[in-house]
């Protein structure tokens, strides 16, 4: 298979993720969509890596996964804390940092 198919799939995944971040209000879903966008990036990294025969891309993908795991830990922790404090689980209502 040629490189284009991978890139198209990656672009689609990224678009789905971005649309989710922009449209959904639940922080949990926003977090999931962020993961989707990261994995879209991973997919294109791996595709380029295989097509160019260079392993650097795979290393980058691993690092992105580590970062993503950390991000999920922090994000899920925040969401649990918000739930426990009976804060609304709706990003549009969490506007305390308004200027």
């Amino acid at each position, binding site marked *: 298979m040629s490189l284009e198919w991978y890139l198209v799939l990656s672009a689609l995944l990224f678009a789905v993720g*971005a649309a989710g971040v*922009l449209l959904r209000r639940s922080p949990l879903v926003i977090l999931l969509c962020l993961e989707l966008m990261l994995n879209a990036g991973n997919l294109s990294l791996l595709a380029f890596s295989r097509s160019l025969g260079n392993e650097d891309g795979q290393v980058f993908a691993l690092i992105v996964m580590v970062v993503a795991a950390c991000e999920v830990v922090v994000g899920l922790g925040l969401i649990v804390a918000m739930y426990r404090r009976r804060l609304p689980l709706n*990003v*549009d209502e969490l506007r305390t940092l*308004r200027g």
Partner: protein
Amino acid sequence: MSPTDFGWLILFFPLAGSIAIALGWRVLPGRTAGWLGTAAIAASFACSIGAFVSLLDRPTEDRQLTARLYDYATSVGLDIDVGILVDPLAVVMCLIVTGVSMLIHLYSVAYLGSDRGYARFFSYLNFFVFSMLLLVLAGNFVLLVVGWAFVGFASYALISFWYRRGTATAAGMKAFVINVVGDVGLVLAAFLIFRELGTFQYLDVFDAVDEHFTVNDGTLVAICLLLLVGAFAKSAQLPLHTWLPDAMEGPTPVSALIHAATMVTAGVYLIARMFPLFELAPTAADIAAFTGLATLLVAASIALVVTDLKRIIAYSTMSQIGYMVVGVSIGAYTAGIFHLMTHAFFKALLFMAAGSVIAAMANRQDIDRMSGFRRALPFTSLLLIIGALALAGFPGTSGFFSKDEILVFAAERGGMYWIFTIGGYFGAFLTAFYAFRIGFRVVAGDPCEEARELEQGHLVHAEPENPATGETEDTDVGYPGPEHHIAERELPMRIAMAVLGFLALFAGVIQIPGVTAGLEHFLEGTFEEAPLFGIHPSDSSAYLGLLVGGLIAIAGISLAYYCYVARPGVTARLRQRLPRVHDFLADKWYFDELIDALVYRPVIGAGRFANDVVERVVVQGIVGGATGAVRELGLLVRGAQSGFIRAYALLVLGGFAALALYFLVVSS
């Protein structure tokens, strides 16, 4: 023990007493604090006698001894130590300071007996004595400045002793500020001396000054004038004298000790101590002498009309210090120091007697209300008259010999120095008159209400009012204590006054022309190299001076007798016929107003200008403009911070999309 060992002990006892009383005020019962303070000064006095005796054992040319305790600051070219100079002048001053202080402490033991701040008073008083002795014994300019400033602080603390009395705290501040003006002069003089001669040690400076400077060298005259600023502020000479009459707001023993007998003579001591400088700068010495003459005449004229008992004595103090300044400035060192000593005796005595009278008057100080205390207060009246006789220079008393010695010396120098003789004798006439203005007003005449009460055995108690403001005094924190103490009923007061009375009458015997010259022989150890020290009036001119002085004193006393006893209405009529003259004198020659117009108002005006223009417009304009600009800029962009996370995400995504599009377009 060597004289310097005694010197250190002289300093040690008052400092230890001050600290001990300050720390132990809570546990010292009754009058213990007073006796402790008196004992400390008595020990110091004993050490002064020890230093005196051990100096006498040495030959005259070997009587200047220095000692250092430790090095205070050592650096390249700078060597400051905590060191003292014990020489005849310092020892004479120590004897006067500790002796008179001891008696005034003794007097205060009883006089302040009912004051709430009893221990505080004695702690301050001991600290004052320590500071004064430090000033006197200092062996270099640095320690002199330290003692000088300590003395100013002690004076401030004691003038403001009754701290709930508005007039007293204001007077304390006034004294402190004017004294600091003097301190600045002294410090600048020390700097100039160091720049020129490279040392702060007295003896090194005095040795080097002859070779370094020619007569009337400009720098040397500047140094001497700066020293004089310090001396005039401390000694209340024109035009820095206005604090001294106000300082009478403090307790009477403070007026006796600090503002009559010791502290105010520090300027005289300074001029005498710096004689090698002043002899090389005759211009500065003459300026000092003329200032002294002006002060003695101005102060004496004011003392003729003031009605506050303590203020009359304060003006007479200024006047007498004027004599001393004239004396030490024209080279009559012995006579100046001699007058300093006798003045300390009779002026302390006058203040003590005044304190007793004021207590009997329930703390009223207006002499127009006083009369006829001779039966009610026989002891006080007797001592008051003795003090007034010595002040007037009545033949045979101590003031008679000391004052005339200065004036005869001035005549001996001839030329323009005759002005001092003539002015001094005129001042002596005024002195005799106002001395007995006090004496006759208090002692003679029909007994006033308070005196009659006292004759029947009752001491008047009244709610005292502050004469300046009309407010009732707050006796709770001290002023002047719920009970009053008069010499007739308190043994310590009687002893102190009796000893001073004896000295005021007979201290003149150490220096009678042609008979004795004890003080002069002793002071030779300090002044032997001073050319002017060698000038001696002949015996015949000295006796002529004494004759003139005695006649003038008797004339002044007679005039006072005529005005206040024989024809009591005469002064009131004179006052009505010459209201302008009276007001001019009663308003103290408008010196307060002059300083107000020349110093206070311009400074306040400059401050107001700085506040209104520099601070409000310039400083606040720059600072306020900068903060305002930042604030306005922030207001412009704060709308972007909506708080909508999804809006931020859209912005990020849109931004990246726009960037990607841009690069695509550019690269294709």
